[in-house]
């Protein structure tokens, strides 16, 4: 809705205002007129109408405000563009992922403007405070406006260079949906669907891009296991506890095929390696039969091209299964002072699990409490509380 409105206003802030106004109009008119059958279409139409009104007011005032969309581009897009290119969300994602914005800002803007996350949810996805994120988003929107970052899909020559940032964005949208930063549900289906949709769109647009293939494989393989991630009461089930016969085998086959295709292009990219790890898990007949040594080897390759503390944390988990909890704990120790992980609950919960398996009950319990402090997802919190309970002090 926002993307479609931006195409009319050419200005993100104005478009956001129009969308807000559409929602408040719905609140006042729906109780008397009844809720329309297509609520999304209704809201989009109203928001776009408000945007057109705004433009009329603006032109009578004869103000030459900088606009993202130039008039010719807009007219062209309305009648004749190819369906993929004319997708407003695709244009918006390339605006949000413009190299004149920092990579983190690009991701944050996309989550806020394309996926409708609140500023606080975006802040949590980035492991920063809400005021920090609010300031970053405001700065970014101002830069788009003042520096004239265009609202369109880049030319063929620029397209590959712009893709990696877009992929990082889509990946973070997916991980945010896969484990919601807060709330009562473990997953947010809407974000997962949005990430899949964006990724499939990119796959059509850039059919030979190994990064796109890798990411689509990763998302497909991870999502193929979504049905078993929670039990009958909505409680969190670990990979080791899940009923593998319920996994979506067709999706796993699709994902595995994409992984092979992506890995055929050298050097292997970050998403292709992550997808290869996901494929090992998805294709292992059981938790015990997982090839943990291969998992560690893939994480080692991944760390070379993507030295992120979160990857190092995942590698430590796998080390814990190959060499035992002592070795896993030692690998975690190196990450203790990593500022990026300071508010990351999985560091504490992983340490708690290793300590639990070593029978160090007291230390394990306090590590679980530490994780609980940092975790805002209700399903994950319930899991941590259950673990603390089982330890029984």
């Amino acid at each position: 809705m926002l993307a479609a409105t931006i195409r009319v206003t050419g200005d993100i802030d104005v478009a956001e205002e129009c969308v807000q106004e559409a929602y408040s109009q719905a609140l006042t008119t729906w109780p008397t007129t009844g809720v329309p059958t297509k609520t999304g279409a209704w809201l989009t139409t109203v928001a776009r109408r408000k945007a057109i009104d705004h433009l009329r007011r603006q032109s009578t005032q004869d103000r030459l405000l900088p606009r993202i969309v130039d008039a010719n581009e807009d007219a062209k897009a309305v009648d004749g563009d190819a369906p993929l290119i004319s997708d407003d969300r695709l244009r918006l994602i390339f605006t949000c992922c413009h190299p004149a914005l920092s990579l983190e800002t690009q991701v944050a803007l996309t989550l806020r403007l394309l996926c409708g996350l609140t500023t606080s949810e975006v802040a949590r996805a980035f492991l920063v405070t809400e005021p920090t994120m609010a300031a970053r988003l405001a700065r970014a929107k101002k830069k788009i406006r003042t520096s004239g970052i265009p609202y369109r899909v880049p030319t063929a020559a620029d397209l590959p260079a712009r893709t990696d940032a877009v992929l990082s964005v889509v990946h973070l949208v997916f991980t945010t949906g896969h484990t919601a930063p807060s709330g009562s549900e473990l997953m947010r289906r809407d974000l997962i669907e949005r990430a899949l949709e964006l990724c499939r769109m990119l796959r059509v647009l850039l059919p030979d891009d190994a990064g796109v293939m890798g990411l689509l494989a990763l998302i497909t393989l991870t999502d193929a296991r979504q049905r078993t991630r929670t039990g009958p009461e909505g409680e969190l089930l670990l990979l080791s506890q899940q009923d593998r016969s319920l996994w979506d085998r067709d999706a796993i086959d699709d994902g595995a095929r994409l992984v092979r295709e992506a890995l055929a292009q050298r050097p292997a990219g970050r998403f292709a390696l992550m997808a290869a790890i996901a494929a090992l898990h998805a294709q292992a007949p059981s938790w015990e039969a997982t090839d943990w040594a291969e998992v560690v080897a893939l994480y080692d390759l991944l760390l070379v091209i993507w030295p992120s503390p979160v990857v190092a944390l995942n590698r430590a988990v796998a080390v814990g299964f190959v060499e035992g909890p002592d070795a896993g704990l030692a690998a975690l120790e190196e990450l203790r002072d990593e500022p990026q992980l300071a508010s990351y609950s999985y560091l504490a919960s992983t340490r708690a699990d290793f300590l639990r398996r070593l029978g160090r009950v007291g230390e394990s319990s306090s590590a679980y409490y530490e994780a609980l402090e940092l975790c805002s997802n209700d399903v994950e919190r319930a899991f941590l509380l259950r673990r603390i309970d089982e330890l029984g002090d």
Partner: protein
Amino acid sequence: MSQYLVLIYEDESAWGTADEATFKKVMDGHNEFGEQNAAALRGGNALHPSSSATSLRRDATGKLVVTDGAFAETKEALGGYYLIEAADLDEAIKIASQVPADFGGVEVRPIRVFD
């Protein structure tokens, strides 16, 4: 259309030791840039080195203080500029990427328009 100032920042010490051939190559580069982007160019100049700069500030009491040197001392100093006109930032970047700046780089700044 918007106007953008393309600021050329380069290492002045590298310029100090550059030979005749290097100097000629850069000047040729600027001439070529000017010819190819004549339609977008609205102005531009090379500046004397930052050692020729004079900075003016007011101190806490409001008294004018004149000092020798550039406003900010950095390894790369402002050495010249172009004023260009472009449809958007992508077009501005395309033009700015052709500015010769072997000893540094360029900064693109949108010109602010007041109502």
